[in-house]
């Protein structure tokens, strides 16, 4: 594999040029971005990766002149977009060149009709009404929302809202489209829907794309060039292949490479090299097939790569774990759902329909399914915020219809999606004490619980801080601590990883795992199938308010066709295992990178023995 730098980019005139750009937000001491030098050609598809708070959004807003023209602050250097210096023209003028789509769909849809949403931009630009209508028609067609003209944006699904936001940007006929984590709230199918639209714009209309994201699988699939930002600096750039191979760099920047790349790195660390460094499932499939087929030669060439006994032992371990996991069902049940139907009034939307299941004490259950499948409704029914329209919900034997939310909160805690709606107090200590005080516990007991929760989540530094002013990851931890201080036995988490980066994901899942090991029952709703595969013992798959599957992760992810019906795909590593030809004899229901890596090694070891 070659390391020819930048040679693969599309060639052409410099189209976007950043010359030694540094920027500070008004009142900030530190630079949000520092010393940025970059040249991009027209029609490139550029992905921007980096941790939370590392300058991705700042970068995006530099491109359309919102920084510095609207945000203020102090900017050095210059940004030239399509021949225009962003500091010399107004944001409105640049808006015709650069469209931007933000993460939060609600914040960027401000009209009451789809058609007026899309027309909003061109109307501001004083374009003739006929021309606008033509553009609206085109933009809605590109994002496949034709026929939705008269609908209210609030009535659309998450994926549709994001596509509408893209259409609204497209109607300005931009030459550059900037997506600032525009797919982060979408289910996998919603994400690929949006990205296929973006790719079409890129290929058919030569629109230059900038995409800030955490989804490296998609980056690998679509991007020409990847920029890696770390602490306000551009620390690396290259093709996805070049970047995802640089494991040390990625670790420093807090970026997770695609699972198939992780596999290649795992094997490389054990001196097993794939002929081509894979970033897509297809490349990995080819590479592994080749590796296993070329086995005898390779064995002669390379040195001893793994102690055979140990290797087969660990792969055995993994298998054993998988078979013993799903047994909790026959224990005492913590949550018992009986023919639960929930209907939202006044429009009569059926969110859950005749759902029945039980969760045993000490289980770790994940709930997955498309946007709007009923995950949040289910969790809110468990804690009693919503009461069943029909059927029954029993929590530790208590019927939620006859028990108050406050009473249930001693037994079951729910961490909701958005931390900002769950923090009300002036200091972190007060925040955590809020629940126990409401339970009228004696002071020493309140103090004990606060101290325990602070210690458990490592919040010692923040005791006296204002919770809402903390960084997103810390805010989520304060919310979790506040719920833990209620000392509920059952803990529910609703998309707790939303809006967070790779490190944030694992931090939260690590906490969930620890709580589980301490005996808590955990139920978590999420779109992150890789986390589900790694942490959960049982997966409940919802589709349009009904249970589609309810089984172990291995069993659930072995049915990709069924999952697709609710817009979910198995983790990439599982997809790879399923794509590998059967004659190789590798397990198909693999859940983690390590599992497949060990299986491959085990295979090699075995055949070495036989030879």
């Amino acid at each position, binding site marked *: 594999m070659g390391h020819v730098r930048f040679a693969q980019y599309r060639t052409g005139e410099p189209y976007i040029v950043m010359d030694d750009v540094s920027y500070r937000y008004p009142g900030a001491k530190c630079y949000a971005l520092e010393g940025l030098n970059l040249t991009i050609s027209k029609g490139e598809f550029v992905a921007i990766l980096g941790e939370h708070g590392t300058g991705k959004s700042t970068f995006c807003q530099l491109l359309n002149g919102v920084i510095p023209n609207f945000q203020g602050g102090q900017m050095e250097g210059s940004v030239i977009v399509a021949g225009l210096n962003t500091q010399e023209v107004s944001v409105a003028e640049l*808006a015709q060149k650069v469209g931007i789509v*933000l993460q939060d769909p609600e914040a960027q849809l401000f*009209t009451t009709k789809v058609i007026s949403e899309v027309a909003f931009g061109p109307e501001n630009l004083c374009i003739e009404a006929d021309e606008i209508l033509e553009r609206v028609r085109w933009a809605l067609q590109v994002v496949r929302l034709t026929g939705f003209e008269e609908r209210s944006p609030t009535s659309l699904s998450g994926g549709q809202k994001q596509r509408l936001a893209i259409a609204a940007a497209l109607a300005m006929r931009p030459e550059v489209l900037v997506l600032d984590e525009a797919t982060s709230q979408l289910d996998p199918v919603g994400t690929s829907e949006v990205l296929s639209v973006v790719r079409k714009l890129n290929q058919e209309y030569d629109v230059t794309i900038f995409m800030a994201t955490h989804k490296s699988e998609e980056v690998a699939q679509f991007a020409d060039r990847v920029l890696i930002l770390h602490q306000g600096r551009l620390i690396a750039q290259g093709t996805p292949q070049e970047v995802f191979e640089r494991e040390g760099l990625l670790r420093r920047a807090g970026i997770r490479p695609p699972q198939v790349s992780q596999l290649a790195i795992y094997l490389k660390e054990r001196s097993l090299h794939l002929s081509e460094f894979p970033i897509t499932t297809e490349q990995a499939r080819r590479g592994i097939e080749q590796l296993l087929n070329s086995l005898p030669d390779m064995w002669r060439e390379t040195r001893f790569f793994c102690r055979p006994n140990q290797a087969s032992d660990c792969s055995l371990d993994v298998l054993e774990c998988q078979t013993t996991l799903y047994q909790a069902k026959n224990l005492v049940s913590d949550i018992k759902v009986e023919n639960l139907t929930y209907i939202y009034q006044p429009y009569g939307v059926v969110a859950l329909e005749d759902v029945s299941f039980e969760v045993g004490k000490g289980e770790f259950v994940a709930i997955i399914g498309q946007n709007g499948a009923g995950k949040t409704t289910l969790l809110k029914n468990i804690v009693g915020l919503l009461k069943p329209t029909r059927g029954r919900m029993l929590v530790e034997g208590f019927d939620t219809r006859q028990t108050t*939310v406050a009473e249930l909160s001693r037994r079951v805690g729910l961490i909701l999606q958005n931390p900002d709606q769950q923090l009300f107090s002036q200091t972190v200590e007060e925040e955590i004490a809020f629940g126990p005080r409401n*339970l009228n516990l004696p002071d020493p007991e309140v103090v004990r619980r606060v101290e325990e929760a602070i210690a458990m989540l490592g919040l010692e530094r923040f005791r006296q801080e204002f919770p809402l002013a903390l960084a997103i990851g810390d805010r989520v931890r304060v919310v979790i601590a506040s719920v833990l201080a209620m000392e509920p036995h059952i803990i529910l988490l609703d998309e707790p990883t939303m809006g967070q980066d790779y490190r944030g994901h694992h931090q939260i899942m690590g906490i969930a795992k620890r709580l589980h090991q301490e005996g808590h029952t955990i139920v978590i709703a999420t779109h992150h199938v890789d986390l589900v595969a790694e942490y959960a013992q049982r997966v409940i798959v919802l589709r349009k308010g009904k249970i589609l599957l309810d089984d172990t992760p291995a069993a659930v992810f072995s049915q990709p066709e069924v999952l697709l019906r609710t817009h979910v795909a198995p983790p990439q590593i599982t997809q790879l295992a399923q794509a590998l030809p059967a004659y190789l004899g590798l397990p198909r229901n693999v859940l983690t990178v390590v599992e497949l890596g060990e299986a491959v090694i085990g295979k090699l070891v075995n055949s070495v023995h036989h030879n």
Partner: protein
Amino acid sequence: MDSPVEYYPGRSLFHRLDPRAKIIFLLLFTIVIFVTQHIHVAVAVLLTVIALWCIARLPLRTMGSHLKMWGGLIAFLFVVQVVLRPGEVILINPLIPPSVPLIGGKGNITGEGVLFAFLIVARLLAIIPILPLVSMTTPIHLLTLGFVRLGLPYQLAYTITTALNLIPTLQAEARLITDAQKLRAFRTFEKGGPIAKLKAYPLLVTPLVIGAMRRGQLTAVAMESRGFGAKGKRTYIEDIAMKPRDWAFIALVALYCLAALLMNFLS
């Protein structure tokens, strides 16, 4: 969720009126209510607004929830007026004997007080549904356009209508916050006394305001990115045109208000 000000789609006559006609109706009726000292006028306006509400086929439940929301304030004002208005005493305050210093002998119920209290209540009841009557029957972008065509600058018109739009957003947000509070066994907003509730409001307002500011900043960026505030004469894909029925409606409203004011000043 049913929001008390958000657009409620419909094809009623009132829905189809030109936004300008409805804005003029809103202004004139509001003026009448503010000016009138006459209980008959206030009651007549109240009945007219209710009639229009029915003509527009808006859900009565929404009107009910409005009144419920303001019910506490209305009751409070009623009591204050009844006991504080000087005049001919019709009922001596039975709670405080006259011998008590300072407040003794105060708080007697007067005939004027009762009448005036009813007037206040009728005025409040009439004024509360006027704004929702207009905002629920007019899509927000047309309402903006109505203000623009009446001569307001676009930015100002947009700000007014967006403020209206903010109410349902904040309501939804407030609901999520109180849900999170219930999950931590907080029950004051459900069953606490009025003073406890008042004390608890910072717990709701803090996250609400900070959340609104965070989202507002994003919205501002999104709007700016879509050319909001660009120079030149803004275009509109949907135009509005005054029809004879709109002129007739305005004439009717104007006559009605004139009559109401005359009655007020003459009597």
